[in-house]
């Protein structure tokens, strides 16, 4: 079990998206005729709060690492070659990567599912044609 390594693991990304989906589902549920159960909101609220804190922790962790590296370089200038921080756009790309990978993974699975469905439909048709032929 893993929360997913930043930029590679998609586990954390999936569960964060599921929390967002939970909220959307509850909000749009009544409009679609499903009454949103009030009892579910405390749980959803808790999950949203935990997820938000997780995101804040990730941002805080980056700031902390930056700060520690800065202090380390001040005291030991030789470390400067290791302490070069990636650019902002690179960090943004890395943050978006799990979501991009997740989207690709889900798309691949969906395509696989459709391909299998059409294949089994084709084999059913073949079987039906074979049984109809004299």
């Amino acid at each position, binding site marked *: 079990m893993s*929360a997913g*390594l*930043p930029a*590679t693991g998609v*586990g*954390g990304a999936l569960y964060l998206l599921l929390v967002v989906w939970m909220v959307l589902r509850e909000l749009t549920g009544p409009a679609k005729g499903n009454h949103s159960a009030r009892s579910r909101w405390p749980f959803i609220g808790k999950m949203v709060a935990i997820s938000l804190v*997780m995101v804040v*922790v990730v941002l805080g962790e980056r700031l902390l690492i930056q700060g520690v590296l800065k202090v380390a370089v001040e005291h030991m200038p030789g470390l400067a070659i290791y302490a070069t921080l990636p650019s902002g756009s690179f960090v943004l790309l890395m943050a978006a990567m799990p979501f991009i990978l997740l989207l690709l993974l889900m798309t691949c699975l969906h395509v696989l599912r459709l391909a*299998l469905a059409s294949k089994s439909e084709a084999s059913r048709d073949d079987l039906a044609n074979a049984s109809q032929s004299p």
Partner: protein
Amino acid sequence: MSEMMRVLYPVSHHKKAIFGGPDDRQITVIVPAHNEAASVADTINSLLDQTLPPAKIIVVDDCSTDGTGDIARALGVTVLRPDKNTGSKAGAQTYALSLIDTEFTIAIDADSILAPDAIQNLFQAIRNSDVAAASGYVLPRYVKSLWERGRYIEYLFAFSFFKPIQDHFERPLISSGCFSIYRTDVLREIGGWSNRTLAEDMDLTWTLYATGHKVRFVPEAVCYPIEPHNFHFLRCQLRRWSHGFNQNVILHWRNVLEQPFLRATVAVLLWDAIVTGALMLFALPLLSILVNPLFVLGYVIDLPIIAVPVLVEGLRRREFGHVLLSLPAYPVLRMVNTTIMLQAIWLELVRKQSLRVYEKGH
């Protein structure tokens, strides 16, 4: 242990009166046991101490050589002993299934104890006729060794974050084999617990989904199994779980593909096992040596994220200090998990060498 349980969980006995009605006595508990003399008495006592007591407790003494059956018999429960060892937990549980005449069946490991209201809480979920199985919250009974501490964090994270979300979407990944309740007729309909994989609980859960049944997770029903305290037992347990997971993927993949939520959770698990595993075992060490030593931070960089729900849960359970002390053990356990999982993926999915020998995890 019974006295200790009363001290730990001072549940008033008036609750028994509430369940003295028609709901009572509809449950049989199966306890599969092979050489569990050290722990089976605690399990039975915790079952006898439930606020909703079962009608019958059946211990399947799977040809133990340490007097497990005698200990169980002395505590007044039914003991069954097959002619020969059934070879797996699934085999022992299914052996007892034909003797069950109650509407509900609980399976519990012989090294587990329950919070006194665990069955009562689990029962609330399965009273809904759509629900075929329900499982509870699992926490290690002892949290002392490095491995137990790692497992403690792993369970707190999974059962307070992943599993409730899965339950919200009505697709818990697994109804845990160490403590679950089932509708007996549904169990019989699908042939009981199968030993075609090493993770019979996952196999059963996915079979239930494939046949249109619901499975629930009940966080209020708490179970405390004994987790592996040393590396040898941990390795046995993880090998069984990892190979079992892959065997279930091979067996159920077509049905899993048809269920959007399950498809997503299983795919993500496999992805993280392969990609994150490969990164941890191969890429991070190489990058740390060849490019920048700071890459070593990759091993613990997501620990603060994991710490969030775990510490919240620790606060709720008044175990904050304990949680904080145990957190560093988690990355160590994860490395072992990752290594064994990658090995299992290689053997099961690539080499097609299926592990078939059931190795006990404690």
